[in-house]
């Protein structure tokens, strides 16, 4: 049989305003649908489905793409082929999923796709056999069954560590992208990095009914060296099991700014901003990778092999992948170091683009 979708009512607003209105009307019992390449597989598995689906696919306001802003409804393939966005962004887009999925998938869906876990991305039959988990229908976590609370090891009935598996998110975070939302409570713009929230279930700092409208790239994003490296079992189709996005600003070989964002190793993409901003978001839970602990000083230093080694070691040490997506955590952790080292060297040695 085909995997049946649960029953829902479909709404197809033509304007953002209508979409927001619908979101308000069906508050708590709806999902937005963009390209559907993440939502529909999850719905087919019966994962947290709702009674209403509000399609964003017919809203022209979401589909603009320029040098500096990319609408949330822009298809991945159109980012991949766009000559104006930073090359690293187009490159990353071109390594998402497969050509067929990139025709449907959109930027919004990519940044907001649901976190992944091999106890979660399974059929109803499978999850029923297992006894479900926190993220859908259940009351425990099979990845981190016990947690430490007040020095005592207790059953984990709160923390989900499902892996955030977007390719574009780390790249855009490294480039300092901002996101603009519109919702029942109005519009707001914030740093993409600040939008993610370290919990596999909540995932975002999101207000009810908010729609991602666009992603803005600072001028800086076009000026620095940037690139992406993806780790995945196969060279097409597969989600990343680690992804490194780097933006590097070099001044005569010395580091002016370095932002490394690592995807698919934790519940959110993790930004390592080596300028060590005074105000960093505290890890939302103790399971989250802590980028700033023992972070080496790199700003102003010559980006030689030793420094690259230091940076990659730090990233490797801090990343805490979980055993819930393909490939072992220990291996993925190590690869975070290897990929960072390689990408940094490439960016240093390659032409600036």
């Amino acid at each position, binding site marked *: 049989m085909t995997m049946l979708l649960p029953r829902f009512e479909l709404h197809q607003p033509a304007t953002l305003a209508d979409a927001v209105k619908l979101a308000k009307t069906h508050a708590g019992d709806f999902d937005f649908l963009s390209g559907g390449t993440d939502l529909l597989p999850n719905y087919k598995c019966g994962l947290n489905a709702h009674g209403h689906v509000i399609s964003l696919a017919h809203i022209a306001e979401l589909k603009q793409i320029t040098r500096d802003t990319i609408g949330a409804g822009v298809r991945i393939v159109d980012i991949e082929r766009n000559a104006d966005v930073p090359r690293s962004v187009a490159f990353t887009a071109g390594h998402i999923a497969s050509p067929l999925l990139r025709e449907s998938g959109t930027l919004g869906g990519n940044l907001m796709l649901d976190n992944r876990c*091999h106890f979660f991305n399974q059929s109803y*039959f*499978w999850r029923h*056999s297992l006894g479900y988990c926190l993220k859908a229908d259940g009351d425990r976590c099979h990845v981190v069954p016990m947690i430490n609370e007040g020095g005592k090891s207790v059953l984990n009935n709160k923390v989900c560590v499902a892996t955030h598996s977007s390719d574009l998110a780390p790249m855009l975070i490294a480039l300092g992208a901002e996101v603009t939302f519109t919702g029942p409570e109005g519009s707001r713009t914030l740093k993409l990095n600040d939008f993610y929230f370290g919990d596999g279930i909540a995932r975002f700092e999101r207000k009810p009914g908010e729609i991602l409208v666009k992603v803005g790239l600072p001028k800086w994003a076009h000026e620095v060296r940037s690139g992406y490296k993806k780790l995945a079992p*196969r060279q*097409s189709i597969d989600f990343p099991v680690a992804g490194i996005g780097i933006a590097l600003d070099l001044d005569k070989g010395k580091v002016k700014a370095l932002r490394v964002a690592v995807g698919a190793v934790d519940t959110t993409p993790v930004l390592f901003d080596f300028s060590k901003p005074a105000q960093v978001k505290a890890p939302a839970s103790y399971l989250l990778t802590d980028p700033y602990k023992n972070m080496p000083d790199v700003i102003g230093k010559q980006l030689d092999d030793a420094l690259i080694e230091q940076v990659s070691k730090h990233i490797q040490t801090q990343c805490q992948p979980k055993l819930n997506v393909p490939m072992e955590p220990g*291996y993925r952790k190590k690869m975070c170091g290897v990929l960072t080292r390689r990408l940094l060297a490439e960016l240093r040695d390659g032409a600036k683009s």
Partner: protein
Amino acid sequence: MPIVQGSGSTRNEHQKNKGVWSDSGAPAVVANSIIGKPAPLKDSFKKVTGEAVYADDMKFPGMLFSRILRATKPHAKIKRIDTTKAEAMEGVRAVVTGRESDMRFGVLPVSQDELSMAIDKVIYNGEPVAAVAADSEDIAERAIWAIEVEYEPLQEFLKPQDSLKEVAPELQLHDKVEKKHPNTNVHKAVDQEFGDVEGAFKQAASTPSASFKFDGISHGFTEPHAVIAHWDAEERVQLYTPQQVPHYTHRALAKVLDLPMHQIQVIRTTVGGGFGGKSDPFQHEMIACMLARKTRRPVKLTMDREETFLTGRGRHPTEAKMAMAFDKDGKLLALDSDVIIDGGAYGSFGVVSAYYNGVLSNGPYWLPAFRYHGKRVYSNRIPSGAMRGHGSVNPRYCTETLVDMAAVELGMDPCELRLRNFLPPNSITPHHKFRITSTGIREGLEEAMRRSDWKKKWGKLPFGHGIGVGCAWYISGSALPIHWNKLPQSTVHIKIDMDGGVTCHSLAADIGQGSDTMIAQIVAEVIGCRLDRVHVKSTTTDTAPIDLGSYSSRVTFMAGNAAREAAEVVRKDLAAAASKLTGQPAQYFDFAGEEIICRSKPSIRVSFMEALHEAQADRGALIASGSYQSPPLGGEFKGSNAGLSPSYSFSAFICELKVDPDTGFVQPLKIWAAHDCGKALNPLSVEGQIEGSVHMGLGQALTEQMRYRNGQMLNANFLDYKIPTPFDTPDIEVIIVESHDPEGPFGAKECGEGALAPIIPAVGNAIYDAVGVRMLEVPMTPDRVLRAIEAKARERAK
């Protein structure tokens, strides 16, 4: 088309009484107009337009839809099943459970251990427990979850070692286990020893040994399982099913439904890939029929991808310990192997698998001494069975790795060492008496070496870049049928009426490998007609004579020979007619280009249609039958049947690849695949089979594995079960080797399975050449490769 001619064998002694096919003693291929020419598969035109009908594409008036409720525990007693809520649902037409039938079935007569649905206990997560037929899939799906099942968990057997232990009767998964290991979950044990193994190891100059581990592999055919059953108004059962072996399903249905076979018609729908995964009689086939019996309506049962994985029958997870002995010149002296294969919940083809894992190591090298201890165990996992290269693939990896290790130890080129040990043509292996009629493995390996520039590359490429070799052989059909009887293994009927259409009936299943085209080519070649005159009807048991189906690489050899024999009968009729029309003696006609030509006076000729109409005078349609039965073969000891085949294919592959020493990623660059198929009846199709085998083998080598968490398969979907994508598949250069088998139809042997095994060791050995590590776990995933590289580095540092 690069075709290498192998050291063909002459027509040897035991061949005489078979008779040479051509009535005039003419060369084997007379007109050579069709055989050996690339021909598109006959049915592919329907496939490219979407016209080909697969089971799930079919609709019948009043058709119901079915879903199966599957066990959610790997091993548990069923305390209670309550179907009342499901039965009461609107739109539900029937619910069946294990109570429907306690008749056990299975593909092998010795392992009749499957129930249509579990009765007292479930033995794997995914085993059918109940099923519903309803007005829509949607209703059926909701209804199965309304069935209440109460389980009482039992101790689970998830590691082969656990299955070796003695347990209480209630913890035995099946009543019948291996006699030598009573009170365990050992399904079959094979212990064989021939020649002086101990002595050989004592005198050997090199005795490489290692322990290997292989994950389970799934066929991954693209068409999920789907069947439609109809209990029609004439009280006949019609089952539409994409079967590789309609005949075994036919037998099993008769047994389970308690009906005479002639009351059942099995209709093979277009098969969307099989690879061994559609060759058992299946529970879902029984279930659909039971629901049809209850409702008297057509019932469709289509599985989703996960259920297709759960139905299983893939390559056994395997643990093997192996040692080989070589003298200082690299001559193979002995093999000692100890293998445990995890059979999962059912017997399936497992008794054969247990033998094949040992006995198929008796080639492609001359093996003077052999010891094998093999065990197939039952476990609470997805049933294993036959998959492309059945039983030969994993042990082949072990032996080819050990051969490579010996070469390194003896300071020899691994190809050279192999060349010193190949079985010669016209030989009989010392112990199992496998009869080698033809082999072109030597020519194949030499050609692959030449094209790959082996001598310049092996051992000489920079670190991280390597080249490796793997050789293999495989049966061209099992010589002994599964069911002991005197029936031929293949029969083909031909009917030609005045319209000039040549209709061939066969039950050999075209599963995409092109067997219909093969039969048509053979018939057209023999009677000299155009290929498009010949139509092959190979789908229904009502009209087709029995054929044992598409497994064990038997079809070209056996059904091909049967087709040739039937066509020869027709040819005789046509020759007699031509003789009547021309006054020339019948034995002096050649057949080609739709004409029947007098050999001595080529100007005298009659057209195919003229001769046909003359031949039909007073009798109507020409009807002919041909059949094939393997000659008596083999030794006289228990289990001597296993591995016997009227002929064997041989292959020699070379793989060049790069290993990223920091990430462990392996990137194959190019594969040279030399395969001896006897005679390429259709080179296009032979290449396709070899390329497909290489791709599938690469999957097992590098990315594919059935992963489990406890008793649940973790990756029963195409996202997580990693079939190589186009990017992961390198360029494949096929080298067809023709050794002209004396008994194969026009010299042909198998090519669909044997070409899978050698790629895996070729990759493993190339990894060794690239980075100096022996991969003892398959698939060779990046994390495993990296771990091996790091372990090696640590060892060096010490």
